[in-house]
């Protein structure tokens, strides 16, 4: 019941006792009319008829309406409470449902996790089984191959055996036949040797009887052969051994020398220097017993030599490795003579590129030079080429000359024509002048003083015409003479 209390806290409590208290607080003697108004308003807002009539300014309580209103209100209230209770119940139900859902949700989540893990585990197991299967399949394949190989071998062996058996069987049969033949045959061919005379031994000596002495002699000879062979071999091996020892000792000496010289120029190895010096000393001690009788190689000396060689070689190896690692690192300080490996390589690359470029350059130069030399060197073609150029020029010039000549001829012709024309013109002018003079004379002579005015004007006109003509002639001849210039 506590949730209902909680939820009903916001709602005004419907208990009559408290309402009683409330009404006492709400309405007093003084504010009756305000209360009435207020209640009317509230009731009208709830669609109830007003309980107080408002006539004559007297607020008369309409008991019927009031009671009805009260009854309705009570009913409302009851309904509301019922609804509220229902709602409360529903809310309870849904909250418990929710809670239940939450619980199931978390449970299911847990289950899901578990099943996922299970899934993973099963996947893993499956994968392992698959790899197992693969390896087993490979093993099976190998085993099958092996079986096949062995089967092949067995087959070939079986063929050999069969072949052999057949051969032996055939021989066996032949033997049996032969035996039968021999049993049947009456005459037995004895084996024997016919010789004209016995020959001497190849070495000329007489044959000897077989005795115990000869046996021991044979044994002795056999052992002598073997011993001589062993001796030979041992001698050869000794010689080889001495050679190899010499080589080893020389190697050791050289290694020691190399290490020494290296160490004196390396400044970082002062400490190791000391130790090396000591080992060097011990090594020099080693040399003494070995250098004695070289054939006497006792195990101890041999071991010492091989050990010292191994030591020196190890040192040399370390040293070389160190040098290598140093070369690949970049150092500062006393690295004047050493540059880093990378720089060195870069330098080399650059130089190579330069060389390549220079080579290409030289090649192209050579080619061009060759081309140059080729054209003058080849005299005939050069001459021919030159000739052809000259010819071209000549042709062109010839053409021009021809054109020029033509033009000149034309000009000559024209000039001649013009001069002729001018001469003719001169002649004509002279004739005309003569004619004119004659005509003038005639006219002057023939004219009487009667026709002095009119014919004169006519004459002057004609004269002017003539003079105009003459002027034209003169101008033409002037032009012609000008053109001659």
């Amino acid at each position: 019941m506590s949730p209902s209390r909680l939820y009903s806290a916001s709602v005004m409590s419907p208990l009559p006792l408290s309402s009683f208290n409330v009404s006492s607080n709400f309405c007093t003697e003084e504010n009756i009319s305000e209360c009435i108004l207020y209640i009317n308003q509230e009731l009208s807002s709830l669609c109830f008829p007003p309980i107080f009539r408002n006539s004559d300014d007297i607020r008369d309580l309409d008991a019927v309406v009031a009671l009805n209103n009260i009854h309705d209100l009570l009913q409302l209230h009851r309904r509301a409470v019922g609804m509220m209770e229902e709602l409360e119940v529903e809310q309870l139900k849904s909250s418990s449902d929710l809670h239940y859902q939450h619980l199931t949700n978390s449970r299911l989540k847990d289950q899901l996790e578990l099943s996922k893990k299970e899934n993973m585990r099963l996947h893993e197991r499956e994968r392992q089984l698959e790899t197992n299967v693969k390896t087993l399949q490979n093993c099976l394949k190998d085993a099958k191959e092996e079986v096949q190989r062995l089967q092949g071998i067995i087959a070939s062996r079986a063929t050999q055996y069969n072949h052999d058996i057949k051969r032996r069987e055939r021989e066996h049969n032949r033997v049996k036949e032969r035996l039968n033949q021999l049993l049947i045959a009456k005459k037995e061919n004895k084996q024997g040797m016919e010789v004209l005379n016995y020959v001497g031994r190849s070495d000329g000596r007489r044959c000897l009887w077989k005795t115990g002495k000869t046996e021991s002699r044979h044994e002795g000879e056999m052992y002598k052969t073997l011993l001589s062979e062993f001796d030979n071999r041992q001698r050869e091996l000794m010689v080889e051994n001495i050679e190899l020892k010499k080589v080893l000792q020389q190697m050791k000496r050289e290694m020691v020398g190399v290490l020494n010289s290296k160490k004196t120029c390396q400044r970082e190895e002062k400490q190791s220097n000391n130790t090396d010096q000591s080992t060097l000393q011990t090594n020099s001690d080693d040399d003494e017993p070995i250098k004695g009788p070289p054939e006497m190689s006792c195990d101890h000396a041999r071991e010492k030599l091989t050990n010292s060689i191994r030591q020196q070689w190890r040192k040399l190896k370390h040293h070389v490795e160190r040098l290598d690692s140093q070369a690949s690192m970049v150092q500062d300080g006393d690295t004047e003579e050493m540059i880093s490996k990378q720089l060195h390589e870069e330098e080399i690359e650059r130089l190579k590129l330069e060389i390549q470029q220079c080579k290409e350059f030289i090649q192209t130069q050579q080619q061009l030079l060759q081309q140059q030399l080729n054209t003058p060197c080849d005299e005939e073609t050069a001459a021919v080429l030159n000739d052809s150029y000259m010819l071209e020029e000549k042709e062109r010039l010839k053409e021009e000359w021809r054109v020029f000549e033509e033009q000149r001829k034309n000009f000559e012709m024209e000039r001649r024509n013009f001069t002729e024309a001018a001469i003719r013109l001169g002649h004509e002018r002279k004739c005309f002048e003569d004619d004119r003079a004659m005509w003038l004379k005639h006219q002057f002579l023939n004219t009487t003083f009667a026709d002095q005015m009119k014919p004169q004007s006519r004459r002057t006109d004609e004269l002017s015409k003539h003079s105009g003509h003459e002027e034209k002639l003169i101008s033409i001849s002037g032009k012609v003479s000008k053109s001659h210039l």
Partner: protein
Amino acid sequence: MYQNSMNFSEVFKQSNQLCKVSPDGKYLATCVQYRLVVRDFNTLQIVHLYTCLDQVMHMEWSSDSLFILCAMYKRGLVQVWSLEQPDWHCKIDEGSIGLVSSRWSPDGRHILNTTEFNLRVTVWSLCTKSVSYIKYPKACQKGVDFTTDGRYMALAERRECKDYISVFVCDDWHLLRHFESETQDLAGLEWSPNGCVLAVWDNCLEYKILFYSLDGRLLSSYSAYEWSLGIKSVAWSPSSQFLAVGSYDEKVRILNHITWKKITEFEHPATIINTKAVVFKEVEKRPVVGSEDLSIHQLTMNNSLFSTQSKYEITQLPAQVPVIKPDPDRANPKIGISTLAFSADNRYLATKNDNMPQSLWVWDMQRLSLLAVLEQTAPVRCFVWDPRRPRLALCTGNTKVYLWSPAGCVSVNVPVEGSFQVQSLFWHCSGSTLILLSKEHICLCYVDAEEEK
């Protein structure tokens, strides 16, 4: 290439490939059916002519070049002829016991006859009346061997399903040692050239090679692998330093004489990628019809009209070697190293792999690596080293003779009327002449080599 001139002699008849030069190099003996013809080697004039009682199956010179034995297996007869006394005669009749093989002893005065079914070996003496018998000789690939100095003989025996080895002193056929061999089924034995070690090998079903000292002690045993087919061929180097073992797995294993362990193995792969080796391939040219083509690689002397010229070309590496797969169902399959030969100076080893029958491999023993491969147009039938210098002669059954030396190789046509198919060849002991054998003829090839600079 060194300049050499090769002359060929005329052709003579022979039968059964029986043609031998006397150990002193002075005489050449050939058998023609049942005649034995002895010629002077230099003039090739017939010096002696003997007639045997039947067709000769085996002919051999005695070590002092004074006697020749002719064996007629069908009749079970051996006839011995003397060069000094042509009318001297000797006949050995094995009677009903039969004869399968006959050979001289190293002193040239005893003859060892192996009877039919390998029942026994009879030792006939030409000096005394004595006859010796050796029982239970083993019938195998190589059951008898004499030391180079001729003092001892090793014989393989088989008694009660076990292998034994007997060492005899050839002087008087005294049995020096007799010991059991640790082989399953002994296939062969061979003395080292210095006569102190006997190499004994098992048959192909088991890869095992044993080394016995002259006095019968087992020095060492070597086995490369189990179960698969094993040893096919064995060869000592002339200095006794190495023993080359060729096996069915197409490899040659070189064992050394100090530890008797393998120092290297030579493989015969189908693809050669070794950059230091030279691969010579024989290339046949079209038939030359009446041309005067003289080049360094050919010698044309009286070429017959239809013979093909061939020369060697150097193939670029990697080179493929032609392989013929053997029939897996047959016994003694044609696979593996069947022939090995060291050169006389110990420097080279020539090998032939049966499933690459057209190729011949030459190995450098100083560097222990492949030096050259010769690829011929036909399967190699026979190859022999010159006894004096590092020169190899080989033939493939055609009309040519091939020579290889470190300077190069050359192919020479045998200029004989008709065709002379060279089936086998061997050198004269001086190394200046090759004797070529065809099916029924012989021809001598004079090789006067001027050594290269």
